[in-house]
């Protein structure tokens, strides 16, 4: 197989050497800590083998936080390098690797896990279900995402980072121009994670369509469930395209085919098309559940039902449908001709319409409400003006001819950060502050939350607003440096300072998580926000079986009406039945490890070894096929005990204590 042992570890760079040592120490430290605390069994039993959607969701969120840190460091490095002209902190090759990993990690390993994590925790609760349709598959999805993320993250210390941008355009991303294995990490690691995501999409489609509590018609579902459902449909429609694109990239790079190469009559434009056929729906996969979270938060903290619910549902469906029809706007300048560019300008501009409808409905939800400025609500409030800047600049970019000047400039970079950060990241933060008590039984500190908020929002605006002007002055993206004559210096410096402030904001979030875990009051009500949807009709943290009795839904905002009419919240112990729950399983974890190993071998182009590991994957599938364990039953006594512990003596849900 010709293994070049001396080239496996990346050498010759002090920063990377430092990271290699740090990673090793962290791994050793973690192993020592868990051994010292004697928590291996607990870890295996409670987390590594869980099929509980709530636990899986929490693990996704943890991955999201850690990846936000890594992607953020990448961003800070980029900003440090470009703060002044002709800076030499990072050379071109390193800068290229850093912005590539920044993009991939932020979208695929930060945003997606955060959103899928919150979807996992909350959606089954919102529809009154006890888990998702396929719990073990759900665990597989998580562990595959984790394996893909780990593989991708290890690249900068072992083997070499991908360096062709998060879009990995050909011919650059092919062996003709990047002959090392760096970009193999891109093709294989993302593929592994992508399989996990596709499975999640299928899982949630079936869950939402088949497992809603009696009385919950589609038009009585909470908006977060609706948007999660639609996002799952988009995943189902778009991820297979990415699967193919990445597979073809793998073939080109590892087996020498000619899909996207210059030689052999390959067609690099085909990569751009396939990538963006997935890539555009992908941004709606992340933004729609985020919109759903904003709907929940805005409604709860205006103490008013969502305005125009029907319209909101139709808008989300419209956005999802249109999202599959706009991909060419990512390459208006690739020479498709005026007819094609005109059509896609129109379809792209059309998406602004349902999005605008949503903005107005959120505003009118707040109107005539009683707005409470909790941290979660602050994120939703900041979203509106900031996303509006992102959206309107999006319409400007959608106008094909104008895009000929904006394309690949910092104007574009500013636009997409103005839709992604307010649209997705603010939403995730809102969701975390909102649902933290439901997940962990304590609340995140509001004071620290406000500090997190202000530093992050001000830092964000300072970082990205100048980029609009830089772009209009000719500054291009992905450029590791610029000369002083360009005049980009002052605004670039402002932007870099903004990034530092942004980072401090993130630091406050991490500190808040730590501080609250240690000091926050555990004696809180199960419904601290006086909220409106079913997930709040449970204990905080939620009982492992979610609902002792499956709720009966009589309207939209089911929980609110149960509270208002004082109906449906009591638990009659005689009605209790044994609850059937799925078994834990170590197979998803094991399978992901095997996938990771197979992926690693394939990335290094040790094909025989990869084939052997592939056999391992099939072995796992066969094992699963022969697994006839059908779950276990929770005895009524245990249910009674758990329910008594969190309900008031008269067995009603604890009322909100203001």
């Amino acid at each position, binding site marked *: 197989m010709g293994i070049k042992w001396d080239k496996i570890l990346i050498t010759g760079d002090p920063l990377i050497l430092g990271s290699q040592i740090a990673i090793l120490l962290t791994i050793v430290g973690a192993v020592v800590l868990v051994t010292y605390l004697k928590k291996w069994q607990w870890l295996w039993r409670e987390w590594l083998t869980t099929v509980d959607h709530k636990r899986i969701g929490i693990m996704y969120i943890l991955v999201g936080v850690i990846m936000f840190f890594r992607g953020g460091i990448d961003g800070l490095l980029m900003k440090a390098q470009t703060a002044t002209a*002709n800076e030499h902190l990072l050379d071109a090759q390193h800068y*290229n690797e850093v912005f590539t990993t920044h993009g991939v990690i932020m979208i695929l390993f930060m945003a997606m896990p955060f959103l899928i994590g919150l979807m996992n925790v909350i959606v089954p609760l919102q529809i009154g279900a006890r888990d998702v349709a396929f719990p073990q598959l759900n665990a597989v999805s998580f562990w595959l995402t984790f394996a893909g993320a780990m593989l991708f993250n290890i690249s900068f210390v072992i083997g*070499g980072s991908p*360096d062709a941008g998060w879009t990995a355009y050909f*011919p*650059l991303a092919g*062996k003709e*121009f*990047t*002959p*090392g*294995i760096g970009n*193999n990490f891109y093709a294989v690691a993302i593929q592994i994670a992508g399989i996990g995501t596709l499975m999640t999409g299928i899982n949630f489609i079936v869950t939402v369509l088949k497992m809603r509590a009696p009385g919950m018609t589609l038009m009585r579902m909470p908006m977060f469930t609706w948007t999660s459902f639609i996002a799952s449909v988009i995943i189902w429609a778009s991820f297979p395209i990415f699967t193919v694109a990445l597979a073809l990239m793998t073939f080109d*790079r590892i087996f020498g085919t000619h899909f996207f190469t*210059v*030689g052999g009559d390959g067609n690099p434009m085909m990569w751009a098309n396939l990538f963006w056929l997935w890539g555009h729906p992908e941004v709606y996969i992340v933004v729609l559940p985020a919109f759903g979270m904003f709907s929940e938060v805005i409604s709860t903290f*205006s*103490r*008013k039902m969502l*305005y125009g619910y*029907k319209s909101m549902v139709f808008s989300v469906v419209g956005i999802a449908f249109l999202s599959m029809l706009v991909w060419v706007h990512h390459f208006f*300048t*690739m*020479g498709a*001709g005026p007819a094609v560019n*005109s059509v896609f300008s129109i379809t792209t*501009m059309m998406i602004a*319409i349902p999005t*605008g*409808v949503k903005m*107005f409905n959120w505003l*009118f939800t*707040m109107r005539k409400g*009683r*707005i409470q*400025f909790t941290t979660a609500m602050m994120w939703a409030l900041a979203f509106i*003006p900031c996303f509006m*800047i992102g959206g*309107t600049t999006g*319409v*400007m970019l959608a*106008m094909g*001819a*104008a895009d*000929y*000047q904006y394309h690949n*400039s910092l104007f574009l970079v500013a636009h997409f950060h103005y839709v992604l950060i307010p649209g997705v990241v603010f939403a995730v933060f809102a969701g975390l502050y909102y649902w933290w008590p439901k997940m962990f039984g304590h609340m995140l500190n509001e004071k620290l939350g406000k500090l997190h908020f202000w530093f992050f929002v001000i830092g964000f605006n300072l970082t990205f*607003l*100048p980029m609009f*002007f830089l772009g*209009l*002055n*000719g500054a*291009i993206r992905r*450029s590791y*440096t610029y*000369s002083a*004559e360009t*005049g980009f210096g*002052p605004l670039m410096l402002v932007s870099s300072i903004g990034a530092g402030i942004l980072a401090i904001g993130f630091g406050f979030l991490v500190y808040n998580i730590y501080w609250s875990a240690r000091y926050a009051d555990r004696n809180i009500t199960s419904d601290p926000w006086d909220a409106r949807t079913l997930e709040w009709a449970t204990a905080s943290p939620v009982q492992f079986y979610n609902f002792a009795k499956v709720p009966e839904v009589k309207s939209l905002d089911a929980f609110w009406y149960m509270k208002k009419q004082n109906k449906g919240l009591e638990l009659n112990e005689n009605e209790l039945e044994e609850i059937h729950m799925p078994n834990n399983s170590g197979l998803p974890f094991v399978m992901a490890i095997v996938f990771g190993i197979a992926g690693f071998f394939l990335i290094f182009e040790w094909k025989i070894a990869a084939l052997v590991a592939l056999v391992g994957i099939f072995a796992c599938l066969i094992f699963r096929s022969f697994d006839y364990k059908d779950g276990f039953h929770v005895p009524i006594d245990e249910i009674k005990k758990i329910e008594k512990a969190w309900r008031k003596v008269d067995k009603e849900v604890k009322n909100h204590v203001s």
Partner: protein
Amino acid sequence: MNKPWKGAQKMFKKGSIIPLLALLPVLLLSGCDSHMVVFEPKGPAAREILHLINWSLIFMALVAIVVFGLFGYIVWKYRERPENKDYEPPEEHGSAKLEFIWTVIPILIVIALTIPTVKTIYNLEKVPEGYKNIKPIIINVTSADWKWIFSYPEQGIETVNYLNVPVDTPIQFKLTSAGTMNSFWIPALGGQKYTMAKMETQLYLLADQPGEYIGRNTNFNGKGYAGMEFTVEAQSPQKFAIWVKQVKSTAPKLTEKHYVDLLKPSNFGRETFSNTHLAWVNHGDMNSKTYTFPELYKNHDYPGQIFKEPDNNETNTKMDGQAEGKSMDMSGHTIGGDHNGN
């Protein structure tokens, strides 16, 4: 929350000022150098695009004012205060009338934006109005890693990393690439278009003012990407003709060997030649040879398998490392020549 209403008031005030707060330093700083090349067009294409941009800015500003205004008003008026703690918000399902209004008005805005957009998209594919009687000058643009090669087929000359063009004359750029996908952009003159190997795209530009303009590659293509700046000097037709004559009589001939060196990954300064490479290869032709040099792109990552291509130009493999000696020239200063062919 001990003094919620005070906090809330403070928060509102800050809330609606967030974007303005961030805007302030930007406005202050951009005042130092408020030149934005897109807003200072030097040719009809850039000017027509600017008109489109300004048109869109009007509508976007309108939307911003409405949304920001509504937002600020609603957040302030309906905030929770100690006085209204027991105010129960009404159960509002929605309003078909309002939905209609805020659907139709955006549709109208989109239509208003679409019409000039489509017009401009089509116009940009042609010689600009008012110049249709003038014979265009043809320039073949070949992007390579990491330089721009400009061939003037009618004049029989070739330049690297700089362009001289006559003012008020339509330029028909025929764009192609010897390797990676790049994007040819001269923001002062107009929009950009991609260059792709074994394909030819076309871009019409025209400078209606003499001057020196910067061109860039905007499609990332590796280590030397940031160094792919080039300059364009628009001169009077007389000066241009003199320059062409000078080049033809004094500039060296481009050899095939040197041309292959040009295609290898490196950053060059300016060069000038009294012939073009089109004699032996046109990269825009689908059946042209492949000029790729994977061995020369190795860096610190673990090496992967490199595949031999049957249609690859074979003369490259003996010249490893020779082209890598040239350093990256960021400042635009000439190494190999200036705009006068020296």
